[in-house]
């Protein structure tokens, strides 16, 4: 009598399985196309990074860091991080991880920016999307691995897919917040002089929302980095897999090296994207 009545149980698991099975049988072609597209982009990015001489990449990162952070030491420091990763013997793996992150972030932005803009301009869409985004961000990250696995099997493609799903909410959310935060008086003034809604968006709302959008991009990038490590569980090669292997074999030293490389990569990416966000802040008047 004290147990929960069995007849009240809902077969949710069965339902989800059913949906996934349906998708797999009926939308297989679509999934294949998406998978091929992801793989193509990813492989191209990986090839590019591995093909470029190491000193070119170090130089580019150093230069960008110096421009973004506006300190003379920032360039050598960030470049030095990369060199140090190379010295640990992880250059190729780091480039693979970086390729995965860049691909995932670019696709996240391609999805997230337009969605965020749409959300800012359509209240109904926003009210539907908001709880969804909340749910996505509170879900533990490895939950996304399950559908990714089912749709795309093992390998790089499900890793990118899971990463995108996990990393896309911040850029959507902050694009929306940024655009909505543009003072109504400014938008109205632009309209009063005959600006179309497109002109208002491009010339007023997006530039003024830029700092907020950059914060979104920064957060998305950091989440992508975190997810890439986890995604190595389903077979994406890179630094994450190295950590995973080290844990499995209880090789503390190796795990530490790989972990340190990830941390350095994270600091590098975070500082640079963060600086880009902060740089634009001064244009926003009180």
């Amino acid at each position: 009598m004290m147990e929960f009545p069995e007849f009240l149980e809902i077969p949710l698991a069965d339902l989800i399985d059913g949906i996934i099975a349906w998708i797999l049988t009926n939308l297989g072609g679509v999934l294949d196309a998406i998978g091929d597209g992801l793989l193509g982009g990813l492989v191209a990015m990986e090839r590019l990074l591995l093909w470029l001489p190491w000193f070119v990449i170090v130089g580019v990162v150093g230069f960008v860091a110096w421009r973004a952070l506006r300190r003379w030491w920032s360039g050598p420091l960030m470049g030095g991080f990369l060199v140090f990763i190379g010295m640990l013997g992880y250059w190729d793996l780091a480039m693979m991880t970086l390729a995965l992150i860049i691909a995932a972030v670019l696709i996240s932005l391609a999805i997230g920016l337009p969605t965020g803009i749409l959300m800012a301009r359509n209240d109904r869409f926003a009210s539907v999307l908001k709880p969804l985004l909340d749910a996505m961000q509170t879900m533990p990250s490895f939950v996304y691995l399950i559908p990714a696995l089912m749709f795309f099997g093992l390998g790089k493609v499900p890793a990118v897919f899971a990463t995108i799903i996990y990393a896309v909410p911040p850029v959507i959310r902050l694009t929306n917040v940024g655009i909505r935060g543009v003072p109504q008086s400014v938008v109205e003034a632009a309209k009063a002089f005959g600006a179309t809604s497109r002109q208002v968006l491009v010339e007023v709302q997006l530039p003024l929302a830029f700092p907020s959008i950059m914060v979104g991009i920064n957060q998305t990038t950091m989440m992508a980095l975190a997810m890439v490590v986890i995604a190595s569980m389903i077979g994406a090669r890179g630094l994450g897999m190295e950590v995973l292997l080290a844990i499995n074999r209880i090789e503390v030293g190796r795990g530490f090296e790989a972990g340190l490389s990830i941390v350095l990569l994270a600091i590098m990416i975070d500082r640079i994207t963060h600086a880009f966000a902060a740089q634009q802040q001064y244009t926003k008047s009180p």
Partner: protein
Amino acid sequence: MAHSGNGNNSLDADREVCVEVRKLWKVFGHEPDRVLDDPELRVATKEEVLTRAGCIIALRDVSFSVHKGEFFVLMGLSGSGKSTLIRCIIRLAEPTAGSVFINGNDICALDEEGLSEVRRHTTGMVFQHFGLLPHRSVLDNVAYGLKIRGVSQEERYEKARACIEKVGLRGWEGYLPSSLSGGMQQRVGIARALAGDPEILLLDEPFSGLDPLIRRQMQDELLELQVEIQKTILFVTHDLHEALKVGDRIAIMRDGEIIQTGTPEDVVINPSDSYVRQFVQDASPTKVLTARTVMEQPPVLLYSWQGPKAALQTIRDANIDSAFVVTRKARILGQVTVEGLVALIRKRGTFLKDALDPDILTCHADSILDDLVPLVASTRYPVAVIDEDNRFLGEVYVSTIIANMIQEQGPGEDVETSEEVQDNPAVLEGPEDTEENEKTPGDGPSEGAEQA
């Protein structure tokens, strides 16, 4: 001498209507139509509608029309709907009911494209809260309207520079608005509206943050625009003196309704109810009364062909000591005085014109009494009122002007005396600039808390 703003030209009913507002309603809140469909709510007070329907009535059945080239001023307490009204005219706020016509065009019937077209080419607006683009320089802000129109960069920068110069901000072109003071930002807003040279200017408290000196300059600039190139101007202000100075007509609003529309003279002399009376109680009649309204017909008018003896006789009979002399067509020639005539007769002169003193004080019929004060202060003779063709219309006595000045002076309000002559630097120099800035009681009821 003639005062440009208060010409009574708005009285010509046959002039082309430029902006027409018909039965306009604006209700903020959910389901505004509920308020309009309910005959009880339609006439309920603002507070009642707010508690019963949760809606704010910002405009209630507003109708008026503004003629081409007219300077139309909107006044009213804070929250009475002035900004909303001016925003509804180009649908920055969507009217809940009613219609707006600009040059006969039904604005509410336009699609987005048509509306943009009107906003680009016909109207220019200055916002109470500036609405400058914070990420663009002053120059780009001023040139913004032209950019939207598709004017080339070179041309729009050239025009924008001219306008920036006009509002006295030369040298600030490259700065962002955030590095400018409030008054300077407001002037950027004014320059932005002027840059497009629009036919209709919608100005929402454009001068509220300016110091009196620049304020007066801007007022004069605006009057010039209006008079010379026939701009139609809708102007919101809290400052009664400003309204009286620039307005051809003034509309006074309360709780979303227009309760009186009329010339400055109308509003000040015949306020329609106690609310309006409170509004205008501190305006001196001398600021709105024109020479035409107070002039009198002289007891004696001499003609140039009359002989000195006959002239002297008529003047003495009328018990006065001077009289104006006119031609057959009533053109004014000058005046003769008793002493002048007596001297002439002694010298056995026979022509009246030999005793004529052509150096008399004249004023235009549309002159405002305020402007006559310095004139009458320097003479003991009446001032001749004439029309454009120099024809004599009547005369104004010093005593009339003084009587009107005294009438307006309540006890303990002697600040006003010095304000009377503010437009005549020659008479009162120096401190006059600070006078206007003083919060006269006239600003009292209309002081917006947000006039920061």
